């Protein structure tokens, strides 16, 4: 039977692309590995290679067609002894086919600028049973904007610009590099490749190779080099391709960066930022999917920042670069492509160590940070429908932790739920729960519930990965429990 050649997905988020060029004509013979067409996504032009041998019987989608959906048949390949007359026997293109195939998703380590699914958290990790329906736009508004409480750090009336977290991080680094010659960036693929996740896009072009430094794959070594440079007064930004790889370097982070100020009796410290994507992405398995917020928050001598919005990413990264201490800056791959309002100010710097009330409420306090906020925001919508008025606190900084804000809220709502993707034992939520118990016991009307990732390494299988992560339903359930809504 003739074989249909389908429009391939060349990145996990790709849903459609342009068929820019056919490199083979009808009637040409095709061998496996031959490049038959070029397709264009919003990131790159990629080649389509033949998998099967045969003769290109019919081109179904003409060169120049835009917006071709993934898995649409684009051509028909005839095998030995078949002729164009057999084409009818192959299945006609049907949209069901496309829908029936599982669509994996979300941006990858080694990939160009890709936005992730519109709403992070569960939905962004569509699995086999949830075929994708979202367009792979570069800018996706975060939900739900109207509810975000005004940030007291942003003057009223400031003009806001929709910006992705990716752009916000880049802008923060560029602004600080313009401001201070001692700031430089180093890490794997940060310069010529423009960043494995394109966070350092354009920096090499503006600041040159002395200040935007590609390193070999030697995390322990370059983390130490960064700390040494910081001890002499430079202000390195060390990018880890992901924080999973910072485990190679954790000795230099903890033993050198965090402790030098103390051990030298205050003579010298390490004004350094370690940044990069943290936590699970999608389907990248056990070794590439860990949340290190709780790990680093254990260490005196470190500050730990974990922003959710683009505005916080920008304002806090600028603060981290200026901070005279080592700062661990935990980003998230799934948030990179999300778009938020960022104030248009010449120098927008936010205070490290201050939580932000994302939404005011009176019935329950939900505390989270980073990607965890996506669950809080979505759960809140459901809770509102059930008549529960939740207050959401975005910690933004994990260490030092802003207990004043948490305690004030708990004293008002008397109930607390925390959310994070990390492992449950000794989680950030555990620490908050114990402090709230010690400092506001009399205000609590229910035991604190900590919603976490499951106590298992991250599995690869789509169904298990979904189960391993916290869910919006977990959060709703927890809130119902602490509010005694059965």
């Amino acid at each position, binding site marked *: 039977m003739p074989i249909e050649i389908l429009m391939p997905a060349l990145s996990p988020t790709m849903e459609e692309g342009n068929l820019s060029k056919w490199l083979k004509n009808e009637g040409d013979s095709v061998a496996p590995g031959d490049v038959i067409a070029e397709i264009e996504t919003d990131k790159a032009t990629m080649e389509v290679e033949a998998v099967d041998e045969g003769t290109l019987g019919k081109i179904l989608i003409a060169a120049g067609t835009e917006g071709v959906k993934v*898995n649409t048949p684009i051509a028909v390949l005839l095998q030995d002894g078949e002729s164009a007359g057999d084409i009818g026997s192959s299945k006609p293109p049907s949209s069901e086919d496309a829908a029936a195939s599982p669509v994996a998703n979300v941006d990858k380590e080694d990939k160009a600028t890709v936005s992730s699914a519109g709403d992070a958290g569960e939905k962004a990790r569509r699995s086999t049973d949830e075929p994708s329906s979202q367009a792979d736009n570069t800018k996706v508004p975060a939900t739900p904007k109207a509810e975000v409480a005004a940030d007291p750090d942003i003057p009223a009336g400031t003009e806001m610009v929709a910006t992705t977290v990716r752009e916000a991080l880049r802008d923060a680094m560029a602004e600080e590099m313009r401001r201070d010659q001692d700031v430089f960036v180093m890490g794997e693929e940060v310069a010529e490749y423009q960043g494995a996740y394109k966070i350092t896009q354009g920096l090499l072009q503006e600041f040159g190779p002395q200040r935007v430094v590609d390193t070999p794959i030697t995390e322990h070594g370059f983390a130490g080099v960064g700390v040494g440079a910081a001890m002499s007064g430079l202000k390195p930004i060390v990018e880890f391709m992901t924080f999973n790889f910072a485990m190679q370097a954790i000795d230099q982070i903890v033993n050198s960066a965090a402790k030098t100020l103390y051990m030298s009796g205050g003579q010298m410290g390490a004004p350094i930022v370690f940044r990069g994507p943290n936590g699970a992405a999608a389907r990248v398995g056990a070794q590439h999917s860990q949340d290190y917020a709780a790990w680093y928050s254990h260490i005196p001598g470190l500050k730990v920042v974990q922003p959710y919005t683009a505005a916080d990413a920008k304002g806090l990264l600028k603060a981290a670069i200026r901070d005279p201490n080592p700062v661990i800056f935990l980003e998230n791959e799934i948030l990179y492509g999300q778009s938020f309002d960022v104030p248009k100010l010449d120098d927008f710097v936010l205070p490290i160590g201050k939580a932000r009330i994302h939404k005011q409420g009176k019935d329950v306090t939900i505390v989270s940070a980073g990607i965890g906020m996506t669950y809080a925001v979505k759960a809140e919508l459901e809770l509102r429908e059930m008549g529960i008025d939740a207050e959401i606190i975005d910690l933004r900084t994990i260490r030092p932790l802003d207990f004043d804000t948490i305690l004030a809220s708990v004293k008002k709502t008397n109930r607390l739920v925390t959310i994070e993707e990390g492992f449950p034992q000794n989680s950030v939520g555990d620490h908050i729960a114990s402090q709230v118990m010690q400092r506001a016991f009399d205000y609590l009307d229910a035991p604190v519930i900590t919603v976490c990732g499951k106590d298992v390494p991250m599995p690869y299988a789509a169904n298990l990965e979904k189960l391993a992560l916290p869910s919006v339903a977990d959060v709703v359930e927890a809130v119902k429990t602490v509010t005694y809504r059965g």
Partner: protein
Amino acid sequence: MATAARTSPAKAKADAKPDTQFRGTLEAPQPATLSKEQELSAYKHMLLIRRFEEKAGQLYGMGFIGGFCHLYIGQEAVVTGMKLGMREGDQMITAYRDHGHMLAMDMDPRGVMAELTGRRGGYSKGKGGSMHMFSKENKFYGGHGIVGAQVSLGTGLAFANKYRNDGSVCVTYFGDGAANQGQVYESFNMASLWKLPVVYVIENNRYAMGTSVTRSSAETVFSQRGVSFRIPGMQVDGMDVRAVKSASEYALEHARSGQGPIILEMQTYRYRGHSMSDPAKYRSKDEVQKMRSEHDPIEQVKNRMIEQGWASEEELKTIDKDVRDVVADSADFAQTDPEPDASELYTDILL
């Protein structure tokens, strides 16, 4: 006591080989002459890897495979030739670009493909994925996602071989990029100090993600990376399965006979991007095309066989079809096998 004698400095000095006896740079042995059967077998094995990888790429495009997927296309001669020099009991360990290694170790294509799609029939029950797959039965020790980590692990497998004195050798693969990780050198030192039976195979495919070796490495002759640990090394044409086979035999004999580790730098090339989503803008199309058309490991064998009159185009077509059938069967299995049961979430964490 005996221990006093063993630690006496005079004795230690006498034991040490004079510098002149250490030759860090070895010439690669002449490429092996393969018999008809060997050529045919090498052809089938390499073709299986290539067709399997093409299929994996296709399934990725259709969304059946998620996460990272690193294809081995172009490098087939390395694992195929290495395997020809290995014997029963020898182990293999590598990084995430591991599908070819598993097929070379005679693992079932169905089990490998089903792991790629995250199904219960996969080698890790769908819990590991493309980068993390193992088979105790086939002596394949992974499948590791952290660049460089497998080098210490492979050295540890060799430590156990020596400890048990079972005559096995661990073949430990890593990339040109991984060759810059610190633990590689910590491992080299221990392996040489303790004369561990390990063969380090550096698959120099010229790039680590988007970084060419000249942009990442002060010493780009990777076979020399063991010199300060007294580990000899050689550069091998990793696109020629005959050259790899000879080097493999030499190196395995070296390690098995108690002389300690040895490094084989395989000069090879990956045709595809680093992973599925890498447009590979850091190299020219001509560079890729030149490797494909002038050095392709599979074409080399094919041309030799036709020249020798060992196989007709017809016979090769039959082999192609058989290989394609095996791959198609693995893909069918991998798409229809169910996902793991939800209860598997909590299994295999501790014993």
